Structure formats: structure tokens, C-alpha cells
């Protein structure tokens, strides 16, 4: 459902995204991002690692409860067990405690808004199953489903989100020309589509992508310990 996908991916979705830089603030602080070229490298790396992992988790969350059982197409409401198990898969793929915290905070905020925008039993069940807040990709996938999107859409929105958040943060922090930065994003569009397709290739949760990005983990940890910061993460 294309219109729902646009709403979900829009940075104006009131779900707290504007407070998160996805490591970009710390990367700017230590001089790893100074302009559009190194921003592009940062985004490409982020998309290929945590972006792909998040997109695959979101696709899986979107597919939770779809067509359960052998009779094909029988719709089963996801139970708390399924949501907790998938959330644990996200936890296992998020090494840094700082990133875990940021992911759960964003997931909790998105779920709270999502439940009011697209009321659905599945989102209510997710909120009950993970009261401290599910990981962000899980919330995004579940909200995508509640909005009427397919798993591929959920993956695409999540991949998009993984690079647009840091890109916007870099614009604000460095005063980069926003048109330059949008050209960088446009250049990554084919990669976004590849990541979204790859995200839907796996059905067994334990086989979902698990690419690590140690540099992003370190940036996240260091960011939390930095005294002056404008972003939550």
C-alpha cells in the first residue's frame, strides 16, 4: 500500500525520530563526518550493516501472524511469545547497550504513536508483550502491517529511515547544503531497494542477517559519554 508506506517513512511522522542521529552526531564530533563525501561513506556503511539488519527485522515483524498454519492464509493474531521472540532476535543483533537503549526508546515512541494512528490488536499485543518498548525495527514492522503495508514495504521504510535520520542530523550539525545531502541520498536509492529485497529473503528468524558494525557501536557508546550533545543517539 504505497500511500501508507509514504506516511510511515515520512520524517514528519510524530514518533520522536528527530531526536536521533544514528551515530552521526558523534561521528561529526570526532571528525569522521565533515562533508557530503564522508557522509555518503558513513551512510553506505550504515545501510549495509545495521540498516540491512533493521530492515530484515522489520520485514519479519510485518510478516508476524501472516498466513499462519498449513491451510494457507489462515490469519492468526500474533501472541506475546512471538513478539518477545522476535524482539530477542533484535536484541541479539544489537551489541552496544547504548544502541539497544536508543532502539527501544524509538520503538516505544513509535508504538505509542502508531497505536493511535493505526489502531490494531497486533500493536496492542506488541505493547503488552514488550512493555519497556520493543526494538525500533520491530515496532516499525508491526506499524507497517497495521497500516496495511507488506513486509517489503516495511523493509524499505526501515532502510530509508536508517540513512535519512543521520543525513538530516548532519545537515543540522554541519550546516551542509541540504541539496547536496539529498543528492547523496538519491545516489543510495538503488542500494535501498537492494536492501529491501534482501530483507525479505529469509523466513527463519535465526537466519536473519546479523551484520555487525563495531564502529557504530563505539560511536554510540562514546556519544552517551559525551557531555555536550543535541541528540539522544
Amino acid at each position, binding site marked *: 500500500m504505497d500511500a501508507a508506506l509514504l506516511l510511515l517513512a515520512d520524517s514528519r511522522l*510524530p514518533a520522536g525520530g528527530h531526536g536521533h542521529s544514528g551515530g552521526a552526531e558523534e561521528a561529526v564530533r570526532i571528525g569522521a563526518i565533515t562533508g557530503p563525501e564522508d557522509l555518503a561513506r558513513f551512510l553506505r556503511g550504515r545501510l549495509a550493516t545495521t540498516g540491512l539488519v533493521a530492515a530484515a527485522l522489520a520485514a519479519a515483524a510485518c510478516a508476524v501472524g501472516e498466513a499462519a498454519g498449513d491451510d494457507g492464509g489462515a490469519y492468526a493474531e500474533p501472541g506475546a511469545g512471538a513478539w518477545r521472540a522476535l524482539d530477542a532476535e533484535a536484541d541479539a543483533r544489537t551489541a552496544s547497550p547504548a544502541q539497544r537503549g536508543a532502539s527501544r526508546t524509538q520503538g516505544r515512541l513509535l508504538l505509542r504513536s502508531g497505536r493511535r494512528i493505526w489502531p490494531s490488536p497486533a500493536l496492542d499485543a506488541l505493547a503488552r508483550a514488550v512493555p519497556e518498548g520493543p526494538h525500533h525495527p520491530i515496532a516499525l514492522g508491526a506499524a507497517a502491517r497495521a497500516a496495511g503495508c507488506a513486509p517489503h514495504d516495511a523493509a524499505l521504510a526501515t532502510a530509508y529511515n536508517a540513512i535519512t535520520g543521520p543525513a538530516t542530523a548532519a545537515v543540522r550539525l554541519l550546516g551542509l547544503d541540504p541539496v547536496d545531502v539529498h543528492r547523496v541520498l538519491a545516489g543510495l536509492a538503488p542500494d535501498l531497494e537492494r536492501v529491501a529485497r534482501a530483507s525479505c529473503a529469509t523466513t527463519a528468524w535465526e537466519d536473519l542477517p546479523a551484520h555487525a558494525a563495531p564502529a557504530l557501536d563505539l560511536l554510540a557508546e562514546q556519544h552517551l559519554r559525551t557531555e555536550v550533545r543535541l541528540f539522544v543517539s
Partner: protein
Amino acid sequence: MSANHEDRHQSPASLDRALRLGIGGPVGSGKTALVAALCRTLGPVLRLGVVTNDIYTTEDADFLRRAGVLDPERIVAVQTGCCPHTAIRDDIAANIDAVETLEERFGPLDLVIVESGGDNLTATFSRGLADQQIFVLDVSGGDKVPRKGGPGVTTADLLVVNKTDLAKHVGADLTVMSRDAAAVRDGKPVLFTSIREVPEVYAVAEWVHGVVESWAHARAHHPHGPAVPSTNA
């Protein structure tokens, strides 16, 4: 849509919670000083929580914690990613999360104060976040500010003009400010303060106490009603 017990998340107008008071206004006008003063004066009679929206670091939250006016745990800081106005108006998710966290941890509360990060004269709180809002100006910005208006000055439930002790030094005419504010505010109240000289801010505290009482009264009489109490009486 299922009926469940977490549905207070679904309804921002629900009365089953503390009154949420937004305090906005330009940087340096005395918002944090006012929050501290209100905590000092109302702390003994009301159950309070405070959310700050620091622009960077947790300066305001730290100041309030050091001031010893409130249990430090009841003061929560929200980071706004360079966008203080977004966090109180367009995407209030992080602030709602902070308010609800305070209520879950320390509730029931009577009043949660949300201090904005400070912005220009156009920044006001969303009605989804604040039930009532105070806009704080100070006289050192010049006595023309009320005449220029702007949504903060014209629509806030209470306008506070602070630092009257500086009026003589900056050549600000308080009579002019009072007359201009009355002209653009359509009868809504205006109070002049010098938090420096009268740290108890009696008149403002009395106004706040009044809106909290109407809120509690409405809560007692319409526990699930959508009505928001009127405070202009």
C-alpha cells in the same frame, strides 16, 4: 480496536492523569527560574514532576536538581536534536514519553511541568502535550515585544513578563507592556514578576494552583470525560 487497560495512551485528553503545564518563551527569559520557583512554592502542596527540553547537555535539568527544589528523580531531561520547537509542537512523542514515564514511576501526580528548550516568539506547545501553557518574556527584550505579538504572546493561557527589576536599566516601560499585552491577548491573564526579587512567585503559583484544582475537579466529576477545564474565569 480492542479495549484494554493501557488505553489511556490512546486518548491525550483523558483526565485520568496529572495536568500538563507547558512553560515556553525565548532563551534566557527565566523559564528554568520559574520552574524552580513553582517547585519551591507548590512542592509542599502538589505532587510534581518536571520535564526539561535542554538544547544541549542537561543544563536545565542539572540546575533544577542542584537547586534542591524537587526530588532529582522527578526531573527528566529530553534531548531535541537541534529542534526545540519540533519537540513541543510537531513531534511531541519524546515529551509524552517522558511525562508518562514520570507518571508511571511516581504517580499519581497532580502536575507535570514541561519546560521548552527556548525558541522564538512563534513557538507554542501542542495541545496534545500541554493542557495549559505559560509563555515567559523578560523586559530586557524591550517593551515592544508584547505589541509584536506572535502565537506565544497572544495564545498562551498565561503570559508572564519577568525581570521587572531590570526595567529601569533597559528603559522598558511596564505600563506600555501591560497595555499592549492586554490588547493582543483578548482578556487572558498577564502577570509581571521579578523572580530574582520575589523567588516565591506568589501570583503565578496561585494561577497554576487554580488550573490544577479545576483539572482535579473535572477529573473527580467526569473521570472519563473529554472536557478540558476552563481557566479564564
